[in-house]
């Protein structure tokens, strides 16, 4: 599981947020993502690497191009963190409620 702080750090950068917004409409190759952004294409690639390391986007090869898309699970690491947390918490909650029930019965 990716560490959640990395998602927050990744999202703190305005350019990376622009990149994510652009991917919101669907998968795109690097060249298309870079169009209209005020940074160079290598810089966009660097931002994509940070987003990928943070678990926010995934990539795949399509012919000679690399196509990026938003992690279908949403904002990967943040969701993974909370998903895991609530799974553990609700299990403990269930055990507690049913323990009560037995005590009363």
């Amino acid at each position: 599981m990716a560490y959640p702080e990395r998602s927050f750090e990744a999202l703190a950068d305005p350019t990376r947020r622009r990149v994510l917004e652009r991917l919101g409409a669907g998968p795109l190759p690097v060249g298309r993502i870079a169009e209209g952004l005020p940074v160079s294409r290598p810089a966009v690639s660097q931002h994509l690497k940070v987003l990928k390391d943070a678990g926010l986007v995934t990539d795949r090869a399509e012919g000679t191009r690399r196509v990026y898309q938003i992690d279908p699970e949403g904002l990967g690491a943040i969701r993974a963190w909370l998903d895991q947390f609530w799974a553990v918490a609700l299990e403990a909650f269930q055990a507690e409620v049913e323990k009560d029930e037995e005590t009363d019965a």
Partner: protein
Amino acid sequence: MNETSQRIQPAPVRKSVTVKAPPSRAFEVFTSGIGRWWPKSHHISAADLQTVIIEPRLGGRWYELAVDGAECEVGKVLVWDPPERVVLAWQLTGDWKYDPELVTEVEVRFIAEGEGFTRVELEHRDLERFGDRAEATRAQIDGPSGWGGLLQLFAGVAAQ
């Protein structure tokens, strides 16, 4: 609104569990009894966690009580509608610190199901706000009172 207002909306985290208890009991254990099931491995305070408390009313505090008596905020009660629904403000960041400016919502519904069973549906939403706050925190660090300001001060002194 500026252009960044068009943002990615991450899907909420949704969980559900069916418990062998009526809604009123499930609600009571979830809220007033939260200290009896909240994972002890997660806590904000420096000292070990003694318990977690949700004050059972609209606007009530949701906080931790450490063994040394220290209290640390987690959030507050946004909707109090027993035994059907409670909405809590979760105000902890990813590194498990309270941030008064961060408000994400945890809605919990208690739905009667069959004889003596309750389906508990939990939704933790507004996850994009974690990203917003990360940016704000960084802006503070870069702002006049942060490292940037300190460097300017240093530059001023050095120039004298």
